[in-house]
């Protein structure tokens, strides 16, 4: 995207923002300038367009990515399924994020996931590998333990140490891009759950109170930005899904620096109550973020 388009889109996003929230939001209009929101929610657009609007409302990518920085974009690429199955993050969204990073002057953008199905099949069949390469980013493997290094989690209750991928240690900016979906073990798979894909030993989490471990790990390094892909949403049989009948095209996108708030908003979109999702409730109690959406300055954008 050209810089000029970007500014125009940014401005229009701001305009929409002023009208989108309904009456309840008018009070907050005075504060409604790009970059001052705690959370941006966009709906009814294509994944890439929704991201354009959201990041503009957040103040543009240069706010998060400085010239010459290395960026890690972490989508969910857990499964060997096609994009229509909504088991993985939308490739169009991932590609667009990378372009924004480069436009902001990123030196390099890396993408990886510690996948559940065979990694190279997931990378390929999710469409993400191609989207990343087309956008100029680099797909990095995460398939052997040698990529992972042990770190301490000081605030962790059940999870006190974990082996995390070296990219997390070597990059300046961390953009977390989960897909919103049903999850048979964690209720929902969102931003915090997506972080499970940067660690090596997931079995330990399952063995030692999964919900607590998810919240524990979120206390470690908060992503610079969380972007939740709610374009296609798997409503049941998650996290892998059985067929496209599990999927509803909802065309939503949530963006926030507060990982708990982002998950809480996405939970609402899914139709659940954030405090019913144990790992969101625990993370809120651990003060990793807040699930009280009413206390936040939210920009709601309809396309």
């Amino acid at each position, binding site marked *: 995207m050209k810089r000029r388009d970007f500014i125009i889109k940014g401005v229009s996003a701001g305009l929409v923002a002023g009208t989108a*929230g*309904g009456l309840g939001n008018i009070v907050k209009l005075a504060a409604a300038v790009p970059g001052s929101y705690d959370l941006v*929610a966009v*709906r009814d657009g294509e994944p890439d367009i929704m991201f354009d609007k959201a990041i503009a409302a957040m103040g543009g990518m240069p706010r998060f990515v400085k010239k010459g920085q290395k960026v890690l974009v972490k989508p969910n690429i857990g499964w*060997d399924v096609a994009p229509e199955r909504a088991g993985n993050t939308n490739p169009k969204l991932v590609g667009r994020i990378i372009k924004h990073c480069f436009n902001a002057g990123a030196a*390099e953008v890396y993408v990886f996931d510690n996948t*559940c*199905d*065979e990694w*190279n*099949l997931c990378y390929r*069949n999710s469409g993400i590998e191609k989207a990343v390469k087309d956008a100029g980013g*680099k*797909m*990095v*493997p995460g*398939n*052997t*333990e*040698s*990529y992972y290094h042990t770190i301490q989690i000081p605030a962790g209750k059940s999870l006190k140490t974990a082996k995390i991928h070296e990219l997390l240690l070597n990059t300046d900016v961390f953009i977390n891009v989960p897909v919103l979906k049903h*999850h*048979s*073990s*964690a209720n929902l798979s969102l931003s915090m759950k997506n972080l499970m894909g940067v660690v*090596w*030993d*997931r*079995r*330990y989490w*399952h*063995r*030692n*109170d*999964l*919900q*607590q471990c998810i919240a524990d790990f979120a206390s470690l390094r908060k992503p610079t930005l969380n972007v939740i892909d709610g374009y296609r949403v798997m*409503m*049941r*049989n998650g*996290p*892998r899904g*059985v*067929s496209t*009948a*599990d*999927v*509803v095209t*909802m*065309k*939503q996108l949530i963006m926030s620096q507060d990982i708990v708030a982002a998950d*809480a908003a996405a939970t*609402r*979109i899914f*139709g659940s109550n954030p405090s019913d999702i*144990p790992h969101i409730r625990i993370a809120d109690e651990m003060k990793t973020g807040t699930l009280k*959406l*009413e206390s936040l300055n*939210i920009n*709601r954008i309809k396309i």
Partner: protein
Amino acid sequence: MRQLLYLKNIRKVISIFSFIAISFVFIAPPQWLSVGYVTVVTWLQFIPSAIQFTDVLKISAAGFIAVFIITFFGGRLYCSVICPLGTLQDIFSWLARRIKRKEHLRFSKAHSLFRYSSLAIILILLGAGSITGVLLLDPYSNFGRIMASLIRPVMVFGGNITAGLLESFDVFALPRIAYKDFHFGTLIFSALFLLLLIIMSVKRGRLFCNTLCPVGTLLGVLSKVSFLRIRLDESKCNSCGKCSKNCKSQCIDVAKKQVDYSRCVTCFNCLDVCPSVGVSYTAKFAKKAGIDQINTLEINAGARRRTLKAILVISAFSGLKAYATRVTGGENPTTIPEARTRVSTPPGSENNNHFNARCTACQLCVTSCPTQVLQPSLIEYGIEGFMQPYMNYHAGFCNYECTFCGEACPTGAIQSLKPDEKKLKRVGLAKFIEKNCVVYTDKTDCGACSEHCPTKAVNMVPYEGKLAIPRVDEKICIGCGACEFACPTRPYRAIFVEGIAQHEIADKPLQDKIIFKNTSEDFPF
């Protein structure tokens, strides 16, 4: 006649080319292989092709017929350029000569009794329904095992180090490979076989091919009547014996000016060294060539020799320790052992009998399996099926969409399935052990098994409070092992796959109606 002297070089080039091409399928990362490539490079391998052909009578499995035709025409060219184990022996002999100037070989009598009786034993075993003899002596399968269990670990280790170096320059083209499991049974067998092969080839050239190898013996019978053959021309031969000294089959009797065609592997070494063009490769009934047609050729074999480049490979296995699966759940070890009575055979193998009677344990499916769920057995199939692969769900699980092993298997022990067939092909059934399950023992959420299940045969159903516990729907379970692989409890897992003797067609995964969700016009917050 002069062009015949190039035959040895042509033989060398083709044999090295086919050796490298076939080695690649055993040592390359699985994602670099395609079905087409694997099929082409294994097509002419005699025993796999013969096994497959008797099963399916397809032209695509007719490689061994081509080998028969080639042998009738030109002798045991198969042994000299197609068989990778033959080339491997040549490499050992050549290395031995380079390292230590050893004595030349000389003519020896055929070990006919040994040869034919070992072929007879193999055939009798086959007749009795056991493939064990073929499995243990097939040259292609032995080559596969040497590559898969001895060379591949070294390649993986070196490859991973190289990949790490490249990655420090931001190049991610070479994938690292997680080497899942060592199999000491296969490793030790392959090492001993290799040792035997080295000793035989260093001391006696192609002795293996002319004693133990069933393909060598069989083709030896045919090559006795081959059209083109090596001949000693009495009128030109000056009995210098160079041909015999360089004959790796030790089958040229200079005194009698006779060649034992059953042992000759048509390597053309004799043509190359003959100073008087007394040796020729000509039609069986060819007239003797006139002397005036031929000039004496000066051949300086020594000048053709090249210097040896020694490759040192450090096989430091200690680094592989890092790949070992981390044992978790130290706090609450599980108590009920997984009572598996039968391991699963890969999808497409239909049943244990079909699979065990056809698999020669070449390890091709093991090295090309993207998830490494296929691993060589020790005694899982009994002694007879030693080294035949089975589904090891602790090493990996069968990828739902993948049909590679069936398409790649050169013997047809695993037959190819269409993706839709494969997704319903049941090779085992998941069994849940509730008392081992985290949800039961710890009263916390887990559900790793259900997450990984591609058909949701393992589903989470309401349990105490807000917890959910796995339940298996056997009608739609295909036994892919994703649940067993993912289960975090140790030392025993809470869910495992019990093999079934006869593969079945599972019901299609349950699919509720499409969801119509009112996404309203507004935001729910």
